[in-house]
Each structure stands twice: as C-alpha cells, then as structure tokens.
C-alpha cells in the first residue's frame, strides 16, 4: 500500500524545518499557518527573489525556543536532544549530546592523525554532524509492524512508515542500544561509537533494522489485514 507523499511549500523546504511539522491532532495552529522562517539566509533569499509579497497576509507560527538564527543551528541535533531528554531535564540532555559530538570528533581526528596515506585520510569523515546524518539515513526502517486483531487472533501486520516516524524510531534505537553497556563506560562515548558504526553501515542498530525488515518479509501474507 502506498501513502501519497506530502508536498510542502517550497519556502518550508529551504529551512530544513519540515521535520518539525507538528501532529495534526495536537496542533494549536490551523493549517493556514506556515512554519517560521528564522534563518538570515532564507530571509535574504526571499528578498532577493522578490517573493516577499507572497508572505504579506500569511499567518506564521511562532518559533520554538530552540529555533535560532545561529550559524551553528542544526535541527537534527535539537531533535536528538529532545528524544534523549528525561523529565524535561533539557540541560543535562544537551550536555550529554555535546559530549557525544566531542567524542566523535576526538575519535575521528585521532584516526586522521594516525593515517599513513592520503587516500586513507580522505576516506575519514571529520564532521560529526555528517556522521550523525549518515547514521540516521542508514538505520531508518521502511516498514513497521502493527498488531491487528482479526477473528480473535492478533497478527503482526507490516505497514508502511512515514519519514518522520522512521527518523524517530532509529534515533530511539540508537539511545536504547547505547544504554546497554557496562557501568564503567560512559553513555556518550558508547553512543558516539554506535553512531560512527552506523555511518559505516554496520553495528547493532543496522542489525536491528534488518531484523525488523526480515520479520516484515516473513509476515507479508498478513499485509491485507491492514485494509479490514
């Protein structure tokens, strides 16, 4: 079964803010509201293309507390921090995430310094956020299992998954697997190693994804139960 892909207005895709689209049921703003444009580059581009008159009468949502015009703003980072947070303790979650990024950088730079040939050096990714993006891209599932009851029997039915949910799932897997460690190892160090492995398309999270896909493949006979 195919779900038609959602088409966002062009202006929203510029900001990479599309992953922040709130769920319809909990949204406090109607569909006529557009996402905020808070980066200087986007505003400059709109002015340069003479598109400013398109935005004159459009209602705009207020930006969240973490959406800033900083040069170092990264939406994936903010999302990861939110998924890691416990009981609203964002300060701690942010600190742990920053340690993770530092740890990734440290491992990669030490690898870079130890490398002997130029080819080897070029193959090492030094930017930690590129590594995180790659790891997420490599571990995103395409299907999920939902238990559906038909004639007093529950079946594990494979159904397609949206991009946002897939992203959420794989980030949660990263956090879950990083917690499974001996007590003397730091969570952030463990998470860093898992992300580096994920960017290389190996490791525990990739295995978890393939396991899920395999089970979906095995349960393909139940797929039609989704329609009733």
């Amino acid at each position, binding site marked *: 079964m195919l779900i038609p892909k959602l088409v966002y207005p062009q202006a929203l895709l510029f900001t990479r803010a599309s992953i922040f689209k709130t769920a319809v049921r909990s949204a406090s703003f109607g569909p006529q509201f557009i996402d905020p444009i808070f980066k200087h580059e986007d505003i400059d581009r709109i002015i340069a293309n003479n598109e400013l008159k398109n935005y004159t009468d459009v209602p705009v949502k207020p930006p969240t507390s973490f959406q800033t015009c*900083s*040069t*170092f703003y990264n939406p994936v980072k903010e999302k990861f921090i939110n998924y890691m947070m416990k009981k609203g303790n964002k300060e701690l979650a942010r600190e742990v*995430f*920053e340690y993770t*990024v*530092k740890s990734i*950088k*440290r491992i990669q*730079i*030490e690898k*870079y*310094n130890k490398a002997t040939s130029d080819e080897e050096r070029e193959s090492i990714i*030094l*930017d*930690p956020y590129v590594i995180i993006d790659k790891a997420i891209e490599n571990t995103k599932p395409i299907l999920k299992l939902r238990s559906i009851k038909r004639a007093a029997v529950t079946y594990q039915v494979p159904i397609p998954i949206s991009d946002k949910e897939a992203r959420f799932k794989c980030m949660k897997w990263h956090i879950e697997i990083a917690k499974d460690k001996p007590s003397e190892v730091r969570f952030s160090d463990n998470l860093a190693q898992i992300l580096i492995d994920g960017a290389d398309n190996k490791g525990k999270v990739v295995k978890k994804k393939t396991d899920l896909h395999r089970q979906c493949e095995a349960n393909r006979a139940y797929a039609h139960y989704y329609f009733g």
Partner: protein
Amino acid sequence: MKLLYTVYYKLQSRCEIALRTKHSKQDLYKFYTLPDEVRSAIFELGGITRVFNEQTQIFNESSILIRNCMLELVGYLKSMTNFDRPSPRFVLYGEHGVGKSMALVYALQYAHENNYLLVHIPWVLRWFAYPKEVSHSLTKEGMVDLNIDAAMWLRHFQKQNTKWLEDPRLTTSQEYVWSPREKSEANIPLAALIEHGITRVKYASDVVDVLFTEIKKLSTEGVCRTFVCVDGYNSFFAEKTNCKPEDKSKVLPSRVTLTRSVINLVQSDWNNGAIVLALSPRANLPDRRESHLPLYMLKKAGFESIDPFVPIHVPELNDEEFHNLLNLYESKKWLQTSEGREEIAFLTKRVPQKMYEFCSFK
C-alpha cells in the same frame, strides 16, 4: 577580513625560538611547542591542566600561545639584578580558564632553563578537597598532617630538581629529631632528607617543613637561586576542607601543617629568589566565586600574608590572539567552519578554555 587572518596564521604564527630567555615583543601572539623532554622533566607529576593534556592528545602537538602577561612576568624576572634584596612576589589573577596556569608553565620553563631550584605546588586545592590520609601531628599540637600527599609532593620536587639534588653544596644545617629512635644528623645532603620523607611517610609533613626552612637558608647564603611557584594559593584561606581526622573535629586549612609551611616559605625574609603565585576563583568554595580580584579571593588574612606584591592581570584574549587560536583549531580540524567567529566571541567571552569547549561540539 577572514582571509587576511588565515594568511597571517600561515605566514607568521609559529615561533621557532627554543629558549624562553630570547623571546621578545616580536614573538607575541605566536605559538611555540612545548618540547617532550621538558614536559617529562618538569611536569610529569602535575602542573599541566586537564584541558591542555587533552588537547595535546588530540592535536598530536603541544603548542602554547605567547601572551603579554607571560612576557611581562618573565621580563620582571630577567630585570632582577640585585639578589641581596628580599625575593619579590608576583601574583597572577584572572577569571577561570583564562590561562593563568599556562603562564605559570611558561615561567617555570624559563626558571628551568636558567638553572633555578624549583619549588612548585601544582594545585593546592587537591590537598584539601581530596586528601589521601588525615592524621594528628606528632610534633605540633592541635595540627593535622596530610602525610601521603606530602610524600607525593616530595616525589614531585625530587623529579623536578634531579640535577640540583646531586650538588654536594646542598646540605642541612642542623640536626633534626623525628622520634626518640630516628634522627637526621647535621650536614647530610638534601637528597637524603627527601628520601627519608618518601620512605618514612609518617614524617613526610615534618620533612616538607624542614626542607622549606633549609631552602630559604641556602638561598640566602647564595648557594642556589630558588623559584617558588604556587597555583591556587587562595585555597589556603577557605572556610572549609574535606579533611576529616579520627575524632571528626572540624579542620580549617590553617590547622593543616602544610599550610603553615607554605605560607612561611612565601614570606619575604629570604633573598636570592622569586615567588610567583596564581589565584583562581576555582580554588575557592563554590559560593565564593563571584569575583576574580585578589582582595575578594584572599580575604583580609590572605592579602596581608603576601602584601606587598606585584599584581599581573591575565586578561581575556585580544583580537589577534582570538583569531590565531581559532586558526590553529581550524588547521587541526577541531573547528570545521570558518564562519560564525563573532558568535563564538560573544558566547565565550574570548576565554580560551570556554572556546575550546565550545568548538568541541560545533
């Protein structure tokens, strides 16, 4: 502007002069490398900060920025000609993470090159915050000994001055009685005295006290030239310590024997040397870190113990230093964009340690 700075870095940001004595105003704001042999000779058992150790491990190189306060301090030391006067006191002060300990590293290296006897206490707070063993003093009534820490410091002293301790002129002036059975006779070498402190840990605190009085005497006689260096001096005047003796009585820093001997060493009743002290808000208790100015940190008692002194302020980085440091980080791949420098300057107040931490997750 950005391009200009990167070119500047490539052209002249390295200082190739090896000796600290020959550094001049032209070498300001450049980087020099701390050689590994100096590192293992002076700083093996302490003296280098955690952040700098981490940096050297990651960057595969230990480069230090030459700053105005370093040249000012070394300039004062160079200009000392009359050694019959009492040894001068210099006090480094500044905010946390601004580079006071690195200035001390620079000064210590200068002293090492110029054949000073080094008396270096790496971080005073370690004695009071994480004491290894607390016991009542046998010789001084009502006082408390930190013997294992004292023995560890004696090993640090021994390591730093291996060349000096072979000198036959460094001997004790009088007989010292440790207990009814044990005593050190007069005219034994200082090396033997230190060895006694390390092997008989029970008397380590007393040995440190005796060692300081002997060094003062030897310096005044002109046998050796002494360089005293204490990092985090203000923790001697804190209101609380973690030292808990057996009877669970309250221990202030003034009740510890090491405090009394160090404050005695810092007095100006001896000649032929120099004293450099660094004050840090981090060496105070957490509720007393609002200001970095000497009178606030030392309080009245501490200020009077070292008055008069030459204050040397260690400021935040200026424009040139700031861009040079970020260029270094860029060349070492620690910072991976050349944009957003204004933002870094605003968020970190141009404090080098904060800059390092900030760049770590960008």
